[in-house]
């Protein structure tokens, strides 16, 4: 066995061993059971009427044509953009830092290194194909195998092609403009064909007719020639019977062999670019780093931190600064059109005009802020887990750290929720909305947000590996099960935390109803908000005690 095959097989075997060994820990074992249960329920359970939908995806010839055209178009776009984007980039293949340290100085030829890279990437291709087979499972076992084999071949071709493009950029003695010109030419041919036929396409009475016309365009004339290799590759996983699969097989096989030979015979010097890429990937795995370091004066801080006062404010100040330095207004504005479209959809049919639409957007953002915001805004202990050894040396209690850490996302999310509520308040009269309900919603927001943030931070302290994110995080069915459990747990915590506040508010509301014949909603809302915040304070103390007892070595070991 060659050393590179030995390396690939040993790495694969040991990775499996590590995955199996970690099942000794109950959290991974339970996660595996939950994950397998989820996969069975969603993908593998014998199909009922509702489950027949996925099978129906491939049922008609029109549907198959649509999928084949969509797949071929996607492949074409990937293939063309590989040549047309960043043509000046240096060839870079994704090797690990260990690969570079051990293999690049070793007496191995470039061809051997390339073969190793191709073989190693097959693991990902096979896992990806298996997953897609699971998701788009065909009715029969043979259908499943054909889909898997077809997908594996298509993904291998794509992988080889992208590698080949990267290498070709560094090749000597090749007319580099030629493939770029071919990609541009092919794009022009397809765009031109569509443009010339636009009148016919626009006059088609139904979507099925449009699809058939597109199918005709993709199989005839110059566009047919450009599209043929992409359709050949896409047709393979969509084959209906073993006979059609075998008939469709030679074309993709030829493309596969040619792509492999193209990659293996490359004379490109990829070592330097690959080393740079490995460093980049390693730094991403180490944790989030500022991609474009910018210097901002001290005035860029949200407020001036005085030297005396509660430490919680110092942590709030620190975390607000970090938000301002990695989230720009541009990032937020990117989401606005999405929110606007949803808002208009929510309120279509109502006659409130712009006010109604805006309120729809705000209602959506309000609920997303309350219930999704605490999961997304992670500038608290979840982000600071990497700095826990610094935080632990500070002369402050764990509860202080926890309170300080959750303050920044709590403040940000509360401000967003209150801005949404303000909009509701302004347009309340035109929308026949009781202003008191809007005020009640605003009052409840901080407590609900803080409680969820504390629940997330509790998980960060108790089970940091469940929170760690980025490419370095653990993967697998057991980890997927853990995530599902975590979501259920958080939902349960929210229900349990809201229950006392809800009961108290309901009792008070009923009492008021019997006394004065109506419920001024603000009064029960104030009581509920106060209970939620009191619960948050108690929870912060409990999590603080946990943090005091947390041994950083446990987190280091996980990282």
């Amino acid at each position, binding site marked *: 066995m060659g050393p590179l095959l030995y390396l690939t097989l040993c790495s694969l075997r040991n990775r499996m061993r590590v995955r199996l060994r970690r099942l000794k820990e109950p959290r991974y074992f339970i996660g595996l059971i939950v994950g397998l249960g989820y996969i069975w329920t969603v993908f593998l359970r014998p199909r009922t009427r509702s489950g027949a939908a996925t099978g129906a995806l491939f049922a008609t010839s029109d549907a198959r044509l649509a999928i084949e055209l969509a797949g071929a178009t996607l492949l074409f776009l990937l293939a063309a953009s590989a040549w047309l984007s960043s043509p000046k980039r240096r060839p870079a293949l994704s090797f690990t830092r260990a690969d570079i340290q051990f293999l690049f100085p070793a007496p191995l030829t470039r061809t051997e290194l390339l073969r190793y890279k191709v073989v190693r990437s097959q693991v990902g291709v096979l896992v990806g194909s298996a997953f897609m087979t699971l998701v788009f499972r065909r009715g029969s076992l043979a259908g499943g195998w054909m889909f898997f084999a077809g997908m594996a071949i298509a993904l291998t071709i794509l992988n080889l092609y992208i590698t080949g493009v990267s290498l070709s950029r560094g090749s000597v003695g090749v007319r580099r403009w030629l493939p770029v010109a071919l990609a541009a030419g092919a794009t022009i041919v397809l765009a031109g064909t569509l443009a010339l036929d636009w009148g016919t396409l626009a006059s088609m009475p139904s979507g099925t007719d449009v699809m058939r016309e597109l199918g005709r365009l993709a199989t005839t004339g110059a566009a047919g020639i450009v599209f043929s290799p992409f359709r050949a590759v896409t047709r393979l996983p969509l084959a209906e019977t073993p006979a059609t699969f075998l008939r469709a097989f030679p074309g993709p096989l030829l493309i596969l062999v040619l792509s492999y030979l193209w990659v293996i015979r490359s004379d490109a010097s990829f070592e330097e670019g690959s080393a740079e890429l490995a460093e980049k990937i390693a730094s991403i795995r180490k944790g989030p780093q500022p991609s474009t*370091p910018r210097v901002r004066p001290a005035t860029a801080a949200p407020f001036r931190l005085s*030297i005396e006062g509660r430490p919680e404010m110092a942590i709030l100040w620190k975390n607000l600064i*970090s938000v301002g330095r990695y989230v720009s207004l541009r990032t937020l504005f990117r989401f606005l059109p999405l929110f606007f479209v949803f808002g208009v959809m929510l309120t279509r049919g109502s006659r409130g005009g712009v006010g109604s639409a805006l309120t729809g957007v705000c209602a959506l953002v309000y609920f997303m802020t309350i219930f999704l915001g605490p999961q997304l805004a992670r500038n608290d202990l979840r982000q600071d887990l990497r700095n826990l050894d610094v935080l632990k040396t500070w002369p402050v209690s764990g509860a202080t750290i926890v309170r300080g850490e959750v303050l920044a996302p709590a403040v940000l999310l509360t401000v967003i929720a209150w801005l949404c509520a303000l909009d509701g308040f302004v347009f309340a009269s035109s929308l026949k909305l009781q202003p008191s309900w809007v005020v009640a919603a605003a009052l409840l927001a901080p407590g609900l947000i803080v409680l969820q943030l504390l629940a997330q931070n509790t998980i960060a302290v108790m089970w940091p590996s469940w929170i760690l994110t980025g490419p370095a995080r653990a993967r697998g069915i057991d980890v997927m099960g853990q995530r599902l459990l975590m979501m259920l747990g958080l939902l349960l915590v929210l229900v349990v935390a809201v229950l006392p506040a809800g009961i108290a508010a309901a009792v008070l509301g009923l009492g008021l109803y019997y006394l004065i014949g109506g419920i001024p909603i603000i009064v029960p809302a104030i009581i509920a908000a106060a209970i939620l915040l009191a619960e948050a304070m108690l929870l912060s103390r409990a999590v603080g005690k946990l943090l005091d*007892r947390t041994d*950083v070595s446990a987190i280091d070991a996980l990282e």
Partner: protein
Amino acid sequence: MITVSHLTKVYGELKAVDDFSFEVGPGEIVGLIGPNGAGKTSTLRCIVGIQTPTTGTISIDGHDMAKDPVAAKRHLAFMADEPHLFDYLTVAEHLRLTGRIYNVRDFDARCSALLNELQLTEKENSLPAELSRGMKQKVAIACGLLHEPKALLFDEPLTGLDPLGIRHMKGTIVARGRAGGAVIVSSHLLHLVEEICTRVVIIDRGRKVADGTIAEISAQAAAEGSTLEQIFLKVTGRES
């Protein structure tokens, strides 16, 4: 000032530190040395409260780290081998944050003095990503010295520093010892320990194997006139 009493730290089945006791008084610079995996970093991390001892007690200026960690940590500074800075805080903001956490009274004067001493004035508005490793180390040191701690712990303080940085670092450590601080320096660089430390503690497989001045431990090891390297190899049983 720093009292470590019967410290034991266990990771799973591995006993990293085993019934380890020693003291560091004011003005003392103690070199903590030992082979790889001897338990040096675990000891330091337990002393500063990053890790929790399995058994044993640690006190800083009379404050028990387990019972009153906040008071104990108020007198401590820990300079880790790898400086961990907050990605999105500038140098000046790191110092301001530290000043607030430790309630440093004459912050402005101390801050500018430290920035001058460590030649960071021109970098005060820089983010960590814009600093070299040596500069980051200096920022960590500035934050550590800001509250004038009575106990200072350095883990491999010379890692990644250039010759000028090494000279400054050695000067900083010695100056803090002379100013009455209790200093622990953990390092594999025996010549550094020999040069700046007033006392040496050798740890091997989690247990203390020697404690005293170089003259004292060479006498204990029956290796008078030997260098610290020779003594180290002898007491850790790696002479051959």
